[in-house]
């Protein structure tokens, strides 16, 4: 075994440097091309005023990404879960719980900004971890576990807020949230980039980098690709699963904080149905529901694609029911395109 040491002085590499990564690069591009196509279509079909393309106005584009940011943050976590072959239906409810938590802690309990945020994020993390334990250690399918989690988180949110939305006013007095919190809803970079978008971007980039360079990500892909083989290979399958659900819960809570600040309230009914939009973004992004292949970059493109689509349909005053219909067709089209992809 002497020649199997982990100190390669020089990599004697006859194989050329491929761009690499566990996820195949090919279908990562598919959703990007889809996004481009929808983007171009949006420009063409955008209404114009005085020759100006409304869709391309700075304000409108900022709105598109702002509207996407919450779903986007959730979808990043959802990508992790789907990569291990799981699903998390509780994210919308956890978002609601976190929004309520932020409002109640800062407004009613007069907590400071940081402690409130830390506690709310911790709640999401622990909630996710518990769901991960239930699925990894007891072996209940994640669909069931998180379906139950959805109800539990929603129930907790209702109890915590007495079933009422808690409005957030900013200031230093009692029953006012610290004004630091309001900053999260502002724009930065000369008023161009909304902070929620910045948060989404940081989360997405961190996730992409994490999936590229971490040992954990190799384990994650292996668990999703073939759980039995992963286990026999010495991958800590249970730990990976718990961590992934914890990350997803944490990001859902983060989206809840963003949600509270954007709407200036925390309501136990916030985030209903968000889990489905997040799953749609992941699917359009080319991540396989069977697990083991996909990428966060694709998910980001998928979330943006849905955002652009919503935006341009709304700009054209298309009936919201028709919007739903078109969104549904796009999801089917994206999934169909992946089937057409040549099998590896």
């Amino acid at each position: 075994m002497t020649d199997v040491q982990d100190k390669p002085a020089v990599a004697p590499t006859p194989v050329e440097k491929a761009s690499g990564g566990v996820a195949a690069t090919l279908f990562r591009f598919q959703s990007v091309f889809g996004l481009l196509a929808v983007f171009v279509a949006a420009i063409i079909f955008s209404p114009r005023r005085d020759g100006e393309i409304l869709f391309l106005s700075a304000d409108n584009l900022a709105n598109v990404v702002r509207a996407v940011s919450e779903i986007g943050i959730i979808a990043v976590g959802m990508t992790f879960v789907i990569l291990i072959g799981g699903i998390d239906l509780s994210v919308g409810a956890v978002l609601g719980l976190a929004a309520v938590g932020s409002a109640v802690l800062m407004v009613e309990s007069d907590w400071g900004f940081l402690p409130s945020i830390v506690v709310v994020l911790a709640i999401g993390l622990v909630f996710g971890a518990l769901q991960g334990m239930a699925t990894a250690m007891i072996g209940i399918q994640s669909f069931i576990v998180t379906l139950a989690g959805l109800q539990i988180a929603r129930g907790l949110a209702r109890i915590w807020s007495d079933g009422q939305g808690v409005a957030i006013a900013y200031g230093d007095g009692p029953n006012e949230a610290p004004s630091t919190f309001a900053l999260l809803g502002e724009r930065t970079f000369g008023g161009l980039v909304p902070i929620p978008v910045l948060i989404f971007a940081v989360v997405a980039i961190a996730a992409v980098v994490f999936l590229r360079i971490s040992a954990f990500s190799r384990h994650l892909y292996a668990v999703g690709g073939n759980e039995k083989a992963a286990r026999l290979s010495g991958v800590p399958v249970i730990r990976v699963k718990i961590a992934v659900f914890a990350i997803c819960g944490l990001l859902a809570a983060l989206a809840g904080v963003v949600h509270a600040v954007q709407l200036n309230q925390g309501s136990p009914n916030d985030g209903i149905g968000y889990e489905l939009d997040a799953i749609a973004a992941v699917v359009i992004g080319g991540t396989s529901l069977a697990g083991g292949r996909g990428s966060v970059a694709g998910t980001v493109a998928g979330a943006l694609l849905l955002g652009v689509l919503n935006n341009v349909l709304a700009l054209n005053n298309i009936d919201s029911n028709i919007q739903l219909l078109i969104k549904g067709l796009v999801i089917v089209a994206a999934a169909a395109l992946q089937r057409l992809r040549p099998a590896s």
Partner: protein
Amino acid sequence: MAESALVRMSGIGKRYGGVQACHEVEFTLGAGEVHALLGENGAGKSTLMKILSGDVTDYDGRIEIAGEAVSFNGPTDAQAAGIAMIHQELDLVPALSVADNIFLGRELRTPYRTVDRRRMDREARALLERSGVNLDPRRPVGELRVGEQQLVTIAKAISLDARVLIMDEPTSALTTSEVERLFAVIRELRRSGVGIVYISHRMEEIAQVADRATVLRNGQIVTSFDPRKLSTAEVVEAMVGRPVQTMFSTPDAPTGDELLRVEDLVVKPRRPRPGRRDPDGISLTVRSGEIVGLCGLLGAGRTELLETLYGVAPGGTRSGRIVLQGKEIRPRGPRHALAQGIGLVPEDRRASGLVLFHSILANTVVSSLPAYGRLGVIARRMERAASIRMADRLRLKFGRLQDDVGTLSGGNQQKVVFGKMLLTEPKLLLLDEPTRGVDIGAKAEIYRLLGELAGQGLGVLLASSELPELIGVCDRVVVLRDGRDVASFRTADSGESDLLAAAMGESAVFEEVGGPQ
């Protein structure tokens, strides 16, 4: 047989991209003939048979069945023409029962159009008996062991009343006695006029069962011969295209200190599982540098022993001791076992060894990841270097490290599983049927590798149902029967018949094998 050929394929050609899988192949099969098809993986056997069974529909050349030209648009057409194929990858539905699987898609009905379960069970039982197995047709297939599943697919194929039966490595998971029974079935089918194409890597079997053998190499027919008249060496030479000195490299390295000692190991499972044979009193030792074989019939408990040593057997109470390098261990799971220096190459590489749609790189390094970086961050250069080094050492045939492992041939896939384990630098390697479904060239390379590893002081525990492999590769063979070790042989002074006799128990020998004892 020129006139009466049941199947006549002429001028068959098929190209996949730049690879000519078949070129001007002439192949005939007579009624009541067993025609063996040999060749390394990638030689074109599978392609040829996929064409015959309707899996591949765009090819050059023509096919005649009983004198009539046919052209199939899919497997259903071929089945209608009486051609059935038993795939190497078992196409069974694990959750359904044995009977349901056999009659899948053509369920028997009662007069009320409901499924006639009783009749299906009865007919399935009869079919299974005909194939020489005693299995409850109501058991879910997923519960069965690989070998039993293989027998179910054979029973299913027989139930189709096919005129032409294509068997792709039907014995790869069978024990010796089951192979004997399968051969009896084949002889019976032959008598009733069924033509059988028999694909196998096992030369002894072909000599026993086949009337004629054809060797393919690089998509072309190299030679056709009477299998009883040609020596194994000549056949292998025809297959690989160059003379092969020795199949088995006999490792002469002196063995070292005791590495593993198992003392009276008994596992009582928490709840009994049908078809499992947990260790029920096994004692054995493996020295470093020693290759110890595990012999036994199907259900003797070979896999279960390896699983117990690796810590992946289902829970239960354990008595007895497992001692690794003088220290008693209680394997808790793969991570724990690997940390102790125990590696496992599992029985079914596709289901348990690899992520087929992940890259060669990802598959080779997954067990040894923390070694290629710091603080959980992977240094790509290091993992690539490790993967390439291992690929070189194993003589892996591949295009790029980024390629999916599923695109490799069976033998090369198995090498990747080996590489993954070797990168963890184990002291003891547990191997479960490491050469199943692997072509003869890759087999020889795996044997060479085992010899080399033993020479470096690694201990190997090798479970196999191939007797020549056990005799040829191992220093010593421990025979298991009903979860106990019943005999141990030095391979230098014993033969296959000794192993077989011990595995079956003395009384069974005369019944099943007849003469040689």
